[in-house]
């Protein structure tokens, strides 16, 4: 289906082509007319020049005759004028006849005749001056001059007739060309009028049909656009309301993020203090570990001393066994001495007393060795108990040292975890700050979005108004193109 613009373009193109055709034909007609006019003008000039030739020849003949009759030089003035003007007139006439060979031949013939006549006139004038009037009239009476003049007249008459025929012929051509131009103008105008009328009808139909349909579409679209604009405005209002609520929530979130950031900062401070305490505690743990090691060495030393004491107690026991053996033997000897003193009777009485004292000493020594043995056994028992207790204490110290190492390791892990906690708290602080910044940006973006929603609402209102105006304009346009109410 042809569009309205295409139809308009085709209509204008046909009109333009028709105008161009009419213009070209008219131009050609005018050109032909101008050419004919130029030819007519040249023919008129040729006629004038031909008449001028005859007139100058007449003036020369008349002037020659007057001089021949009167002998006065004043009569020769026209002759001299003809003698001056004829060459110029001939030279001007020759190009005017160049396109006509017959006229060109006649012109040559007439020129020769003019030259002969002018020579004859000059000869007669010379004759009059030299031989006088009689001689000159005698030559006139011969009639040569008249004959030549008649022949010249006849030739010039032919030339004038030829030019007159040419004028008539060109008048007919002008008439024919003018008729063609007139017909071209009349028929071209009629054709142009018909074409414009057809284009107007076609365009009117197209305007009424296509444009009307399009305008109806525009009307429906305007209605739909208005409804959409109303929905968009409602949505924009809801969006603005939601954005306001979200902005309020995000403001609360921002405050919470800042509180979290403050808390994380406090946690970082506490973690740094804890890490500092942990480093100080590490030194204390190291000193305590050294103290435990020194205690362990002291306990080992005590155990060594105790074992040495036990060995020496054992040696003392051995020596005590020796002493006990000696005491027992002394006792036995004292008993035997007493027995012998008893056998000796009175002689042995004094010896018996000494032996009894010796026995008493031996008894005391035996009792003392028993006491010493008891005490040494007590000492050895105490030593064994002490050694066992010390070994138990040593084991306890070892266990304590191991537990202390575990505590120290745990403390080190705690210190490491505190550092990790501090790093994590810093990361939390940094992340929370970044989150707060992001939330601020989000809040700004939401505010911008809410503003954009409000602007969208306003724009939707404008769109609705524009759609209403567009619908009104569509009705007007439809009224214009269909001339009926919608």
């Amino acid at each position, binding site marked *: 289906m042809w569009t309205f613009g295409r139809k308009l373009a085709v209509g204008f193109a046909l009109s333009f082509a028709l105008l161009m055709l009419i213009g070209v034909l008219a131009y050609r007609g005018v050109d032909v007319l101008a050419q004919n006019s130029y030819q007519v003008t040249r023919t008129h000039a040729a006629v004038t020049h031909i008449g001028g030739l005859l007139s100058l020849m007449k003036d020369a003949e008349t002037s020659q005759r007057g001089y021949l009759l009167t002998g006065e030089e004043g009569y020769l003035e026209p002759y001299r004028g003809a003698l001056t003007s004829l060459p110029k007139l001939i030279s001007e006439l020759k190009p005017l006849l160049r396109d006509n060979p017959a006229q060109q031949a006649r012109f040559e013939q007439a020129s020769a005749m003019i030259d002969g006549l002018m020579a004859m006139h000059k000869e007669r004038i010379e004759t009059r001056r030299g031989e006088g009037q009689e001689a000159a009239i005698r030559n006139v009476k011969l009639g040569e001059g008249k004959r030549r003049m008649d022949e010249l007249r006849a030739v010039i008459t032919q030339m004038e007739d030829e030019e007159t025929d040419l004028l008539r012929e060109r008048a007919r051509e002008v008439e024919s060309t003018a008729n063609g131009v007139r017909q071209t103008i009349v028929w071209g105008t009629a054709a142009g009028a018909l074409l414009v009328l057809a284009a107007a009808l076609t365009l009117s139909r197209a305007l009424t049909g296509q444009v009307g349909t399009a305008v109806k579409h525009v009307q429906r679209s305007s209605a739909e656009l208005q409804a959409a604009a109303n929905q968009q405005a409602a949505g924009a209002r809801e969006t603005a309301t939601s954005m306001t609520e979200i902005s309020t929530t995000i403001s609360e979130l921002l405050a919470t993020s800042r509180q979290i950031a403050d808390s994380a900062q406090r946690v970082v401070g506490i973690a740094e203090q804890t890490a500092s305490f942990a480093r100080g505690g590490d030194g204390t743990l190291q000193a305590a570990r050294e103290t435990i090691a020194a205690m362990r060495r002291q306990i080992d030393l005590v155990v060594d001393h105790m074992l040495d004491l036990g060995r020496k107690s054992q040696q003392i026991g051995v020596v005590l066994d020796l002493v006990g053996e000696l005491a027992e033997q002394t006792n*036995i000897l004292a008993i035997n001495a007493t027995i012998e003193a008893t056998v000796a009777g009175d002689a042995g009485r004094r010896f018996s007393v000494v032996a009894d004292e010796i026995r008493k000493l031996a008894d005391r020594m035996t009792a003392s060795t028993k006491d010493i043995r008891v005490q040494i056994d007590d000492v050895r028992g105490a030593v064994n108990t002490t050694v066992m207790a010390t070994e138990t204490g040593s084991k306890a110290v070892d266990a304590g040292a191991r537990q202390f190492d575990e505590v120290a390791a745990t403390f080190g892990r705690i210190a490491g975890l505190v550092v990790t906690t501090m790093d994590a708290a810093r990361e939390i602080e940094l992340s929370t700050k970044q989150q707060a910044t992001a939330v601020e940006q989000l809040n700004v973006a939401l505010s911008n979005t809410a503003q954009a929603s409000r602007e969208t609402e306003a724009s939707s209102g404008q769109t609705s108004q524009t759609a209403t105006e567009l619908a009104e304009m569509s009705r007007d346009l439809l009224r214009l193109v269909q001339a009926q109410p919608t």
Partner: protein
Amino acid sequence: MTEATRARLRDWREAFDRSFAEPLRRREDEAALDVLGIRIAGDPFALNLADLAGLTPAMPPAPYPATAPGLLGLAGHQGQVLPLYDLQALIGRGPATAPRWWAITRAAPLALAFEGFDGQWRLSPGDRLQQSDATGTGWAVRCGGALRPLIELEGVIAAIAGGQLDSAAFADRDTSTTTAGRAGR
């Protein structure tokens, strides 16, 4: 050194010095009794020192092929070979497990083996008591605050010499009180 030890040392010093300072014992002292405290089968007994010719620690006896009751073998003492009898068996307490002492009797050339030797005491006549327990007659001595049955070696020696001890009779013999019952001065 504790205070008690110092006091005991001081007493011992004084007693020792006093033994040199005091005059010889009077006649009453002649009645003093020297006894030897021994231990048989864990029980305390006493021997009259006047009945003994010597006391020596036990040594391994030389075996002697005889079946006499209580005979342990032969013992050597100051160049003499003496028959060694088990005192515990002789007083009817059964065979001794590990005799550690030998006592040489003065009345007869023989040696008596017993387990324990507690010491020697010089007793006054008041410390010799007539034993009146349910087991019979005999004497007992108070040594260090405790009573010890006094074994009369004469009866023991007489029993060995008289062959009164045969194995059956030895087996039926009750305690040392039987032997002690025959003792007495």
